[in-house]
């Protein structure tokens, strides 16, 4: 029994670690009818490819922003900036508005049925709806 316990310790520990590690989730307003979305679909709104939903971005230096673009679009900050340079300087689109924290993103998304944002899973409450968890 004791041996079994010892064997389980690392497994339990690993599980606990993965639970506490920050997970990024994509959110919309509770009033938005969308229920689920694929990572590439979510990325479209943040890369100027679709304006059907209004993207709400995190601060430029934030770790969650880097995590979101890496997992949703497989791109780093420089690549995202180059894409926006294309769109801005042809006059075709403007980058998403940025908010300083997950709390502000959540508030902006909750207030606008057309908004889409991303926050840490631990910051989710019932003012917003999770449509995608990024791994």
């Amino acid at each position, binding site marked *: 029994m004791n041996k079994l316990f010892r064997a389980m310790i690392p497994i339990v520990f690993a599980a606990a670690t993965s639970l506490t590690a920050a997970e990024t989730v994509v959110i919309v307003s509770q009033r938005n009818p969308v229920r689920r979305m694929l990572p590439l*679909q979510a990325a*479209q709104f943040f890369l100027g490819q679709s304006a059907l939903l209004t993207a709400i971005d995190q601060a430029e230096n934030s770790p969650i922003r880097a995590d979101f673009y890496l997992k949703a*679009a*497989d791109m780093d900050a*420089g*690549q995202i900036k180059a894409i*926006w340079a294309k769109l801005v300087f042809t*006059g075709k689109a*403007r980058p998403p508005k940025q908010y300083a924290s997950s709390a502000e993103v959540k508030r902006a998304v909750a207030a606008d049925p057309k908004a889409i944002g991303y926050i840490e899973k631990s910051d989710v409450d019932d003012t917003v709806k999770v449509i995608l968890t990024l791994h």
Partner: protein
Amino acid sequence: MIDRALNLQNELSYNVDRRGQKMKKLAMILLAASCSAFAETSTDGIFVSGFGTIGAARSDTDKAQFVRSNQAEGVADTAKIGLDSNLGLQASYEFNDVVSVTTQVLTRKSTSPSYTTELTLAFVQVKIDDELNLRVGRMGLPTFLISDYQNVGYANTLMRPPIEMYSQTPMETANGVDFNYQHAFDSWNFTAQGLAGVSRGKLFLPRSGVTEDYRAPTVALALGAQVGSVTLRVSRVEAKLSSDDNVPINDIVTALNSSGFVQLGNDITLITGKKIAFTAVGLTGKWHNIVVQSEYGQRRNKDQSSVPDTDAWYAMVGYRLGNVLPYYSHADFKGAGSSITLSSNFPTSGALSSSVRGVLTSAAQSSDTLGVRWDFARSVALKVQIDRIKPTSKSGSLIYGPAAGLKDTVTVVGATLDFVF
């Protein structure tokens, strides 16, 4: 960043005319007003942003000059900053969620040996719905894959737009109306841009060292399909190109008329507008760490015209290693015949014959490019690039070459700092 941009602006504006000076002042005021990162400066609906390149380049020959498309001064065997350096400033104002206005000025060395400032964008945009925008004013022409952002070094992997493709047309902007339609379907995104307007500008004529003013009523259509970061795009531009002051062509037409070849003169002249079409298919994107960009494009006359038909293509492949992106590209352009067939009674030798045959023949070249882009800091990229240019007809894209045409391989090395703010 702002300081550096202002310094560059000072440097670039050293030679510009008085209009340019005014533009510079305006630009500096706008710039000073913006103390935040790229395209995020928003005060009551005003957005100010900019892009630029500081670069130096040289070649290994003094027999000809290497230029970008439509440049009056290039580089030979001493390093110069004028080839690649430029500065663009853009301001937008959103009246509300539907109507906005955007202007952009670009300072660079183009058809004049000194820096000049041009108005590259000036339009009012009306958002019809989430998928459709209409614009009225001056817009970039979507002729080829990167045509409407070819001057934004930061937005491109290559240091310069491949001259083999991009020198097929001098037309960069048009005044008129356009629509931009965007439709997302599952993970796909489809775009359509249609434009009708008039393109005006200058074309540098290296053989005589003068510029012509051209005018071209133009229609354009570009269709794109995007999935993830891969974009496939087809485009077609048709223009009726005319120019009153193309001195070399006008001289030939005068000589033809006085020699009795009136019909040939009418075919060669550009004073009456000549229909010309550009068709291109391009692909850009990345797959894991592999970055690709490739394009095929052609220029075809729809009327009898002295402008030769041309075919061009290039293929670039890069491999991303974190912030560092080494790349290789091969490009090629060549003549695809002339819309004019010389009659059997036209002389086969003599001065008039050789100038007519010379005009109807396209330049041709291929090139190999090896370079690296390093995104070493936020909003700044350093590029180093080596080009090996092999001219095969009429000195290729090089200017001021020997009369018989340069056939030597020319090596060009360049380094640039591209930035956005």
